């Protein structure tokens, strides 16, 4: 029993953090927000240089074959720096899907190398989301249809853009026609596959929400330490201190829940879906509280476009409801808690 990451996992996380601190400053995020397509080839290339696009690609296709536990640490950083890129859909979800296909499946050889190199962007569409993120700026769409898996070329779809309050998200309603040519997996194999996709997307979002919560906390603390009112930093007022402390407590107790969900997915734990939904709720609660308390501490400044806080709040508000909103995940937790399953001391790791 050891609830800690190993040195190498933490070292990789630290390296990514250092890299993003330099490469993903808020100014860069603003620039990318303003662009037409909302994505930066330059940033994507740098992410690839760090090995992030290859993280779970098998070695035979030029990847480094890491798993959910490595991803969860990376995802926290992607959240902390609010990285505007389709890295998660491409490098984590699409790779997971392709890895489930028969070893000799043509799609694997065609796409896994391009994903590893960073050159390919893949969008993943499932009806749990009304829109498909980055559908336009992608080389391939992996789409759900009656539990089947279909691989579709963007050219064979009609896309209507639906703007989000989070300008780093580019959402599209996708209209397309399923056919034998597009079908990759039938409903029976597809059902299990899509369940795995929803759980991994849920894990990635939990971790990003956690990173976002930490970032909003840090922004609130920085502002409170500098901003003066009544002749002293507002951070010296107990009300402000306690706002920030409440967020710190939520973050502190959400993180292990997210990490346990990652371990459960890595070990194909039968309860992994429940743990992912718990992680979504815990991280979402932390992120929403962090947004509320941080804007409160920022005062009017936090209500402006100029303050960096807004980019992180909007990302948190948006992510909290994607790949299953709170009602979806709470229902999954409830189904477990009220199922008569063994609960209580000693059952946590059974």
């Amino acid at each position, binding site marked *: 029993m050891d609830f800690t990451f190993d040195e190498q996992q933490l070292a990789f996380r630290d390296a990514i953090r250092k890299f993003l601190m330099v490469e993903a400053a808020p100014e860069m995020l603003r620039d990318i927000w303003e662009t037409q397509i909302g994505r930066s080839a330059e940033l994507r290339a740098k992410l690839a240089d760090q090995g992030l696009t290859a993280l779970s690609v098998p070695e035979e296709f030029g990847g480094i074959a890491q798993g959910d536990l490595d991803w969860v640490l990376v995802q926290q950083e992607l959240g902390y720096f609010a990285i505007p890129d389709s890295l998660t859909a491409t490098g984590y979800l699409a790779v997971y899907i392709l890895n489930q296909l028969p070893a000799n499946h043509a799609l694997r050889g065609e796409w896994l190398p391009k994903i590893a190199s960073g050159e390919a962007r893949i969008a993943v569409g499932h009806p749990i989301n009304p*829109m498909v993120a980055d559908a336009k700026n992608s080389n391939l769409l992996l789409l759900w249809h009656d539990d089947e898996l279909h691989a579709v070329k963007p050219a064979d779809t009609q896309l209507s853009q639906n*703007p989000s309050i989070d300008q780093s998200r580019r959402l599209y309603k996708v209209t397309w026609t399923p056919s034998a040519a597009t079908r990759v997996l039938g409903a029976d194999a597809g059902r299990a596959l899509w369940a795995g996709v929803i759980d991994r997307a849920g894990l990635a979002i939990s971790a990003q929400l956690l990173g976002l919560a930490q970032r909003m906390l840090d922004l609130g603390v920085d502002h409170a330490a500098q901003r003066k009112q*009544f002749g002293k930093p507002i951070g010296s007022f107990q009300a402000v201190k306690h706002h920030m402390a409440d967020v710190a407590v939520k973050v502190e107790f959400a993180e292990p829940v997210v990490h346990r969900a990652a371990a459960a997915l890595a070990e194909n734990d039968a309860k992994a879906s429940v743990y992912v939904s718990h992680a979504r709720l815990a991280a979402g609660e932390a992120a929403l509280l962090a947004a509320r308390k941080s804007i409160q501490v920022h005062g*009017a400044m936090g209500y*402006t476009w*100029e303050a960096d806080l807004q980019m992180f709040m909007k990302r948190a508000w948006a992510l909290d*409801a994607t790949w299953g909103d709170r009602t979806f995940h709470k229902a999954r937790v409830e189904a477990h808690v009220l199922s008569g399953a063994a609960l209580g001391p000693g059952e946590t790791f059974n």
Partner: protein
Amino acid sequence: MRLEYTEKQNKFRAEVRAWLEANMPKKALTSFDTEEGFAEHRAWEGKLNEARFSAVTWPKELGGRSCDLIEWLIFEEEYWRANAPLRVNQNGIFLLAPTLIEYGTPEQKARFLPRMAAGQDIWAQGWSEPGAGSDMAAIRSKAVKDGDHYVINGQKTWSTRAVWADWLFGLFRTDPDSQRHHGLTFILMPLNLPGITIRPIKQLNGLPGFAEIFFDDVRVPVANRMGDEGAGWNVAMATAGFERGLMLRSPARFQQTAKQLVDLYQRHRDTADRDPAIRDAVLKSWMYAEAYTLSTYRTAGRLAKGAKIGAEASTNKIFWSELDLLMHETAMAILGARAELMAHAPDAGDIGQWLDGFLFAQAGPIYAGTNEIQRNIIAERMLGLPRA
């Protein structure tokens, strides 16, 4: 205690309802944080004024209907019930006007109130400064008497709708040696004077809802002073009292939101009931909006019997701002994955204005005195706890 409306009150309600049904804009106006939307809302103020509905509580001779507070509440109920446009001139009509009526000279009233009622002059307020937010008494912008003018230098910020407004009212330090609340003077000025620079501030939704205002040797006639020189703080506090008090956040606004939330929930119970917290929040929203309404009617009754608004101003501010957050957070939870979509998104479905309302609700616990300041006021002035 008699919780029934009089014949006269019912007739007034019927008149307002009928007029709104006949005169409501056919299509919703554009946001007044845009230039075209600002113009649309200005025109709507004019239309309201033609029917003497733009400032019903003002005395008849000043363009109002001398409505008492109960009639004002009735007007607001019908106004919000009809989803009528937001009031682009609310800073003038609800914040400045009561002060102007109390402290202004006959000339000032005659000069400013009719144009204000008609929407010919839209007013912005100049309270906050970069170093003076919650701590309003830290104001540093100076006004130096020079003959029959004040020469103004300094900076104001967070001035709502100042980008397209015509006039500004605010506090300026006329006594350079004064501290805190002393030596401040209440001054009115057109925003097109030489030396005034306005820098729009984009708010969360990207629109320039407020602005910074820079003053560089701006000359304002002494005749534009309201109240005595150096008496500005007391004059302003009357306004601030109103701002936090009854006028600016009438219960009808929150009752309408609560009603729309109930409707939204009813349409989406199939998913919303998967999270029991949602139903509970919907019920609380109705109960709190009702409580806020009842409390306001009680305050109106007390004022009619000669009472003064006291700490209610602070308890109201906390209550409505937290209620507004609760309702909009709940609506976002019900809308789920569609909640992030902008109102004009082609496939947004029935999301309505909830996102914009949610963003605006974030400002509720912050502006007009943060809720932390309000809690201090309640603890110290209402409960008598010692200052720090």
